[in-house]
């Protein structure tokens, strides 16, 4: 049975790990390699690492960091940040990364998705969609550059396009729910699920395991990604890397069964 994936998502800024709220207020939470070692011991399903400086600063991905992360990870790794061309996809995969994520680049040059898929295979091409609800119109908007730049694309329509272009996964990231820890934006997840049949991971808002259960119950074999949940403990947000044990995860999947593997 193919299981849902529970995925810690780590943000890198100035070489350190941070956690944001609504894509802002980065708080330092530790060293990336150290975090990976802890997540190895906890046998996490998969890991996403996003360099949130690279695209904004218009610089190359930090290949030395990526090489170290990939060598250290005993779980699959998805890297994103600063990826703008096929050569970078190729180089990052050759460093031992299973999946490479693009967001701003996918919006500006969607055809890169097809070209990258021809080289590294579609299974390794991930599109991260940063979405927020427009405060005025209440409609979902796709954003670029850590949410700072609006782009004139409708999220559902964009999700369908990246599937046509050969991407392997969509990570839908709610800017409004980021770091708030009050549950996923399930409506946003529904919008994207209806538009695309690609494997989907949902990020932004998980504050407790029950939030993950709610997502799995509705969407079955889905990726449940979270930042704050796995790096903070308690209401004071003390930094403590944590992750449910295998027994806890199996119990959670069992509890949600019925929609799984469908």
């Amino acid at each position, binding site marked *: *049975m*193919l*299981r849902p994936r529970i995925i810690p998502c780590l943000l890198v800024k100035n070489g350190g790990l941070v956690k944001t709220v609504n894509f802002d207020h980065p708080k330092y939470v530790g060293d990336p390699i150290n975090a990976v070692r802890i997540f190895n011991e906890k046998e996490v399903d998969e890991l996403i690492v996003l360099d949130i400086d690279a695209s904004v600063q218009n610089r190359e991905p930090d290949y030395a960091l990526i090489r170290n992360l*990939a060598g250290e990870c005993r779980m*699959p790794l998805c890297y994103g940040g600063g990826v703008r061309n096929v050569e970078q996809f190729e180089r990052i995969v050759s460093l031992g990364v299973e999946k490479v994520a693009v967001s701003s680049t996918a919006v500006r040059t969607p055809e890169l998705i097809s070209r990258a*898929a021809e080289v590294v*295979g579609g299974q390794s091409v991930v599109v991260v969609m940063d979405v927020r609800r427009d405060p005025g119109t209440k409609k979902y908007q796709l954003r670029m550059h850590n949410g700072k730049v609006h782009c004139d694309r409708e999220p559902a329509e964009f999700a369908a396009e990246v599937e046509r272009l050969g991407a392997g996964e969509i990570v839908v990231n709610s800017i409004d729910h980021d770091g708030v820890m009050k549950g996923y934006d399930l409506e946003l997840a529904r919008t994207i699920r209806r538009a695309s049949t*690609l494997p989907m991971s949902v990020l932004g808002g998980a504050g407790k395991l029950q939030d993950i259960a709610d997502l799995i119950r509705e969407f079955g074999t889905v*990726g449940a990604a979270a930042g704050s949940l796995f790096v903070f403990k308690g209401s004071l947000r003390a930094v403590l890397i944590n992750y449910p044990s295998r027994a806890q995860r199996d119990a959670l999947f069992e509890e949600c069964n019925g929609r799984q593997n469908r």
Partner: protein
Amino acid sequence: MIAIVHYGLGNVHAIANIYKRLGIPQVIATTPADLAAASHIVLPGVGAFDWAMKRLNESGLREALEHCVLVERKPVLGICVGMQMLAQRSEEGSLPGLSWIHGEVRRFDASRFAGETRLPHMGWNDVRPRQTGGLFKQLTSGARFYFLHSYYFSPKNDDNVLATTDYFGEFACSVGSENIYGVQFHPEKSHQWGIQLLKNFAEL
């Protein structure tokens, strides 16, 4: 000595790190001499079929690799695209495969997903070995591995199937023929089960 073929793709460092932790000598092989000195060979891979074949063909290692595997009969383990390369051909590309095991690589038939197409097959799934020892020693019950692929190896002879996985129907997630082995999943990214499998391979 385990040689991990470094031809520009696949997670050579993660595989090397696991063998280091197990205390099993390993080398990231970049020259024919590295392969010649090894007792076992791991052929990793992430990427599209033609790209992987092209990189291997251009690596300067193919001839030495074929000598080790086909003449000296050293155990070899293909991982992911490394397993698919063992086949004669792939629907994903036009270049010929290594043709070490009869069969071809096919894309999952989307029609069997009944409108709920979910490709690639991505995540942790159960692996059911057909044998108890060898590559799957101590992995016969409850073993899970990480998969990431849209194509699978369809061997010509059912005897070459070592293990199966269910994803809207069964497919061969591991194949073998004498000293040649392949796994579609990523043992280097599959925690305790992957470590066990890599250890088993070293003991073959």
